[in-house]
């Protein structure tokens, strides 16, 4: 055999291998992040384009289905009206949600701490959820008039249940070893609750809050449907009565944006309160949303 060039070049140093692996990982991560934004954006744009083109090509009447451009035009035209209405509805949602927390969490605490109370209250609580809230709305109207109060109460009635259930379940779901550990360390009841049990329940509590905020939006709109004189729900009724489908869609778009924004606000608070825990569970679940 004659001397020849070695077929395999000298193997690269492990540092170079590591650098190239790290480069590829970073590139993959960047691509994934870009795709996470581009994919849904692209889908929305595609739907809007088909919608616009379809309504124009087939001459769909605007009172049935206005093209997106007409909806945007309506939003611009009624900007002041929509802003005021959004403000009213936002206030109702936020107050209803706040009331859900103010009532739901203490109620959950009592359910957790005092089993006889839980036995007495849980059947009532569950039947209250089986009862359609829309049916109660007119009654609240009779009791509290047409102002802010009945809308806040309906939002609260719909939204508080997941807060109660998730908080009570979250508090009870702790591993028994953590409580054994606390007792063996001589940790007092107060410290055991605030240093161990409550932080342990926070992910469950926030899961409840995220459901609750979306339900509060529904509650506020239902309240305005039944007896409103302001807000996005009321605006939808008015637009519907006047066959102003553009305004109807504009209202729906505002409500959707409002609902998503409030949900993201709750999620932001969650990340601030339990950042590490979320990172860990996110890894396990493969992302939020």
């Amino acid at each position, binding site marked *: 055999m004659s001397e020849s060039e070695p077929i395999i070049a000298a193997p690269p140093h492990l540092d170079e291998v590591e650098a190239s692996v790290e480069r590829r990982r970073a590139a993959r991560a960047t691509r994934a992040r870009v795709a996470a934004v581009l994919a849904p954006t692209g889908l929305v744009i595609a739907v809007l384009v088909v919608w616009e083109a379809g309504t124009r090509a087939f001459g769909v009447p605007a009172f049935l289905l206005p093209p997106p451009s007409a909806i945007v035009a309506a939003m611009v035209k009624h900007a002041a009206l929509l802003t005021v209405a959004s403000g009213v509805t936002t206030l109702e949602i936020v107050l209803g949600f706040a009331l859900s927390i103010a009532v739901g969490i203490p109620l959950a605490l009592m359910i957790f701490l005092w089993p006889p109370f839980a036995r007495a209250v849980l059947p009532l609580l569950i039947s209250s959820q089986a009862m359609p809230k829309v049916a109660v709305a007119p009654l609240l109207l009779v009791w509290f008039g047409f102002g802010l109060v009945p809308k806040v109460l309906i939002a609260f009635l719909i939204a508080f249940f997941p807060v109660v259930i998730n908080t009570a379940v979250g508090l009870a779901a702790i*591993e028994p*070893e*953590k409580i*054994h*550990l*606390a*007792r*063996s*360390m*001589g*940790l007092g009841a107060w*410290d055991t609750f605030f*240093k*161990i049990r409550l*932080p*342990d329940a926070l992910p469950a509590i926030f899961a409840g809050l995220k459901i609750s905020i979306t339900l509060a939006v529904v509650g506020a709109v239902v309240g305005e449907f039944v007896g409103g004189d302001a807000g996005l729900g009321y605006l939808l009724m008015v637009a519907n009565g006047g066959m102003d489908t553009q305004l109807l869609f504009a209202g729906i778009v505002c409500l959707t944006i409002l609902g998503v924004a409030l949900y993201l606000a709750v999620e932001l608070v969650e990340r601030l309160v*339990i950042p*590490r*825990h979320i990172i*860990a569970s996110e*890894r396990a679940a493969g992302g939020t949303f």
Partner: protein
Amino acid sequence: MTTTSPDTAPPYLDLRGLSKVYASRDGAVRALDHVSLSGGRGAFISIVGPSGCGKSTLMMIAAGLMPASSGVVAIDGAPLDGPRTDIGIVFQSPVLLEWRTALGNVMLQAEAKRLERAFAERRARDLLAAVGLAGFEDKYPHELSGGMRQRVSLCRALIHDPPQLLMDEPFGALDALTRDQLVLDLQRICHERRISVLFITHSVAEAVFLSDQVIVMTPRPGRIDRLIDIDLPRPRTLALRDTPEFSHYCREILDLFLARGVLREH
């Protein structure tokens, strides 16, 4: 001459006639049947037995976390009522708080004991370094391996300088190599600090390697089958496991298991 004779002084840990019966839907379950044992300060006592022999129940009772159905637990002669807060406990799972760092988890014990913060933190860092976790103080549990988490749990049990450790199959979920290392670490730490240990395991070799005395239990209901004093020189090294003396002790325990039908050689 000292005034107190070692014969009359009560042993540090004294379990007398402990029985435990659980009420269950299918009738009462007898977990422990008149178990008595005692150990002096600094003694390393292991309890081996098949699953369901009441080993964990025994530990919970010795920790004061669960009342016995009958019998007495006495510490230095004083009967126990309520959890023992001076000791350190290590469970089979690390039981770490996911939202606290390794250091923060160790410091939980210091906070419960209201130890001075700067002092406790120095001690916590020293302990973490002693079990090979220097540089991992600020990692969260999900960033640590199973063995590392169990080391954090061990540090948490040690930070208040306890007179005794109660350990319930602490290395049961770890791989063989990590287990060997932790067994060596545990031996060194307990020897240096003169800590008494009540160690529950189903590994015969681990029990013989670590202990001054091995207590072999019968299948349910758990009774003490035999007390075996392990007379092997300390500190014990891994090479000891290849000696005839070591094998002899393991053989004795396995023979008991064979005799009780815990093990069968067909």
